[in-house]
């Protein structure tokens, strides 16, 4: 059994920003379903926000992901209910493969935030005004460094440090490097079996023999 996967600790993310404005940006906008006809996540990066970035004949439209000044950005700044809609992990996978390492926003849809966590991408939140100020600053300072301190729950930019919120479990998982939960949960296999045995609807023949 070689299920030891190295899980990096994500206590700090630094990079330049990219503002993506608008509330309720859903996962169909982040990655249209037609790009999900694949059996791996490889290469999804180029399809992030595809229909917002390209027109009828694939001609580029005005969108931050198309702007030269944001091409090396890794910290996305979004508004409220970002990532609502489907459970497709293709959405954060596409953003990650485009180059996004952390997202700062007003609020996130629950499944989307969970998917980001499973990839080690922090989704940190702040109020509307704070986010709008940060988006404006990023527009003015596309090369300006933003530091997201996950553990301290702060974001530093332009010589200023602001308080942000990181969900408790997310912070702990990222900072301690336990956001990939497979091996951790697998180590509890005997307790899992016991939980299963105590459930009236699980038949004995549905519980595999203890092999590990």
């Amino acid at each position: 059994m070689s299920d030891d996967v190295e899980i990096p600790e994500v206590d700090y993310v630094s990079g330049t920003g990219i503002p993506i404005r608008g509330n309720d940006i859903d996962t169909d906008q982040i990655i249209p379903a037609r790009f999900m006809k694949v059996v791996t996540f490889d290469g999804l990066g180029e399809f992030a926000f595809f229909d917002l970035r390209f027109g009828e004949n694939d001609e580029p439209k005005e969108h931050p992901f198309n702007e030269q000044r944001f091409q090396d950005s890794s910290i996305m700044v979004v508004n409220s209910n970002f990532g609502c809609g489907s459970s497709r992990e293709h959405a954060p996978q596409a953003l990650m493969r485009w180059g996004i390492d952390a997202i700062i926003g007003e609020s996130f849809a629950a499944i989307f935030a969970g998917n980001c966590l499973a990839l080690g991408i922090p989704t940190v939140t702040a109020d509307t005004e704070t986010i709008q100020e940060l988006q404006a600053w990023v527009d003015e300072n596309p090369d300006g460094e933003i530091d997201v301190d996950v553990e301290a729950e702060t974001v530093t930019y332009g010589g200023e440090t602001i308080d942000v919120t990181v969900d408790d479990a997310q912070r702990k998982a990222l900072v301690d490097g336990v956001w990939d939960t497979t091996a951790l949960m697998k180590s509890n296999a005997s307790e899992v079996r016991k939980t299963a045995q105590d459930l009236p609807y699980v038949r004995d023949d549905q519980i595999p023999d203890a092999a590990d």
Partner: protein
Amino acid sequence: MSDSTLYDKVWDRHKVTTLPTGQDQLFVGLHLIHEVTSPQAFGMLRERDLEVAYPELTHATVDHIVPTADQSRPYEEDAAEEMMAELEQNVRDAGIDFSDPTSGNQGIVHVIGPEQGLTQPGKTIVCGDSHTSTHGAFGALAFGIGTSQIRDVLATGTVAMEKQKVRKIEVTGELGDGVEAKDVILEIIRRLGTEGGVGYVYEYAGEAIESLGMEGRMSICNMSIEGGARAGYVNPDETTYEWLEETDYFQNNPEQFAELKPYWESIRSDDDAEYDDVVTIDGSSLEPVVTWGTTPGQGIGISDPIPSPEELPADKQDTARRAQEHMRVEPGETMEGYEIDVAFLGSCTNARLPDLRRAAEIVEGRQVHEDVRAMVVPGSQRVQKTAEAEGLKDVFEEAGFDWRNAGCSMCLGMNEDQLEGDEACASSSNRNFIGRQGSKDGRTVLMNPRMVAAAAIEGKVTDVRDLKEVTTV
């Protein structure tokens, strides 16, 4: 345990331990998988040399990419064929039951689970699909997960979750004539917002909910996620048990029905259960609801005016302006008379037998408008077969509807069923996001199945209650 919700009880029964992150490790009683979100998870298992821990509690079907016209293999589209072949290989290797199209049991994952009796009260149910909340209609704790979490569930039989708050949504009174479960959930989302449910699980209760059949309850729980709630449920009752008793699982294991019933009864929310929030909605005041915008929260009663963005909360104004521009609607107008090009009767929200029966009643003896292409996509092969035996297929076809095979189809446009250009679609599905139905200029108007039928006939959004009056003349 005298003041607990169903959510508390089912959570506690499935909790294995608390992880170092503070999340709980929950045992998964049923893991449903399909072709779009599972192949990468199987790939991750192979990379880590892991096997499927609980294949007997896992069940597969194919729904998102499956063609609904010509289903002969190989599928015409290479990508669809590749995804299907990958799923076939994965389930064969792992020994997972597969409701494939040759079985007669294939269909949308949230239709076939309840149909076969896999969905039961007091189970934890997960699937790589946000509409997994559907299964909460049976008093299960059911929620959508991402692909990395699918890997977790495949490898360990468990998922890491944070406990949510519970909001009770009590829908009182009796629903009016022509008002359906779909209208109730669209109204709930309109009132509480698309993110109002983030951090919550919704418990649906009250007379208007309890008097619904299982299909109606499924339509409501299905769209919990559209309101931001990852899960929604209805406490199990006699209506639930009657459904279960007829399913394959309990027909094949009749002794289990009596054995499990006390468990089902025990996990119902206690009368004095404490909730984090309670919302009451007068069900008798509702009328058919349709959407005017590009989020499911942008709905209105059929006779209500489209709101002006300025009337809405500050954080919804910009979204509303963009939505009205996309949909080409004006504040102050109603949606009645909004011309449509396509009528889609299908999806995990509204493609079960009673949905098709009710729509067929509207369609019978009428003709689809000449400018409309209309299609019915049954939720499963069993729904399709029964509907055909009842003569519903004939009713729809005589009216000019295209009668298709089971799948997700035009709900999300992953197969050949898509909107073209700026077509407007009266749809019984769950999402009106821009681009959702396959065309980025497409326009989706969500509504209940009878309203879809009425729109198909009139060529425009129509109050089905008015149409009925015409029939009786």
